[in-house]
């Protein structure tokens, strides 16, 4: 009977994990801006989560636990591509996909392009807080960094986003291109 209950609880938990797929996908997309890669990362994270399900003692922490697995999959992917670089400081010159700018509205696309230009660490902190509504403490747990690091990434990331979006003002296009070039050179 106890075994049956345990199995029932685990089945429910597996469903809860699966129910988070859409949120995980949206966040993974905000990190990599590539639907196929985002889909792969989520699939990998869910597979790992279901395999490690028993490790999760406290079900109240399901969300941060799942997002942490996703962040780890994303970091593994980046490390495999750029083994010598510090993942958090990576600035990926994002691929020129017209979908990024034209798939939705130009405004949404401008914001996405600006987010895509943030160093990975700042991009993750900002999307976890602004998009998913996680607290600084939860974000710190997900990214496995101190709370102070989350705070400084948020602060630097917002300042940079603001500058990038401001650079899009009419007549300021040259400035915008120059700032993009500057950012790319950070690599």
């Amino acid at each position, binding site marked *: 009977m106890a075994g049956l209950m345990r199995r029932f609880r685990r089945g429910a938990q597996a469903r809860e994990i699966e129910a988070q797929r859409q949120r995980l996908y949206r966040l993974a997309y905000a990190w990599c801006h590539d639907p196929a890669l985002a889909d792969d990362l989520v699939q990998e994270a869910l597979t790992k989560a279901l395999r490690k399900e028993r490790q999760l003692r406290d079900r109240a922490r399901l969300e941060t636990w799942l997002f942490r697995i996703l962040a780890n999959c994303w970091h593994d992917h980046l490390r495999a591509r750029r083994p010598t670089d510090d993942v958090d400081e990576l600035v990926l010159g994002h691929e020129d996909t*017209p979908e990024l700018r*034209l798939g939705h*509205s130009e405004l949404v696309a401008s914001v996405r392009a600006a987010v895509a230009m943030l160093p990975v660490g700042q991009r993750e902190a900002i999307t976890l807080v602004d998009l998913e509504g996680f607290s600084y403490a939860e974000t710190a747990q997900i990214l496995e960094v101190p709370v102070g690091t989350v705070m400084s990434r948020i602060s630097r990331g917002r300042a940079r986003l603001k500058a990038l979006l401001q650079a899009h003002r009419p007549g300021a296009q040259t400035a915008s291109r120059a700032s993009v070039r500057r950012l790319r050179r950070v690599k």
Partner: protein
Amino acid sequence: MSPHTPHSESSLDAFVDGELTPGERMIVHAEIDRDPRLAEEVCRMRELKALVRDAYQEVPPPPSQKPRLAEASGHLWRRAAVAVLCFLLGGTVSWLLQGAHLDLPSAAADATPAGGRVVIADPSVLAEVTATSAPVLLHLSSADPAKMDQALDELEALARQDLHHRVELVVNGGGLDLIRRDGSPYAERVEALLATYGNVTILACSKALERWRYREGREPRLLKGVEVAPSALDLVVERLKEGWTYVRI
């Protein structure tokens, strides 16, 4: 949470993110009341948060669920963009959005014709595209030889149909393989197409070439007649604003 200097940027971030203790919040509120610049800063930060949140409310579906054919008209984008602006601001205009909407077709609507069409290529719709009278921009970013073949077939069909009809093909990402002098599977065909049809232009994205140079550590050599565009993305946006049909292969 550790005490914050009320003026510091990160304490304002913590304020808009709801991370301050009630006591700390009161201090920041008092500061905001005294200093209108601070109030403006808080307002900008809230807008920025809202922009980030709204930018990902609708994301492209995973490839497994993506419809094969997606079409939109410039008119629809304009409407969607305006709707987003109205939704975000409730009619008020803010500095941030004034900045961010620069590329909105509506901003230039008086000066340019209505935006062009977007077609994500599918063999069944290419015939329809061929029948349009608008100039066509094809875009290839894949190294898949089948896609290269499709792009060249389409380019040739459009060029042959009407010699005054301009057709451009822009390549970036894996698509660069098509126009590399060393290793393009269709080198002869590309050069022959360019030599035969005066209405055909093939361009490589300079940003993609830059990445290629960085990755391979040497200069890419392009096939004869291939031109370089400053950016594939800017070219696509430019052409759409001019009323071209854009086909993603």
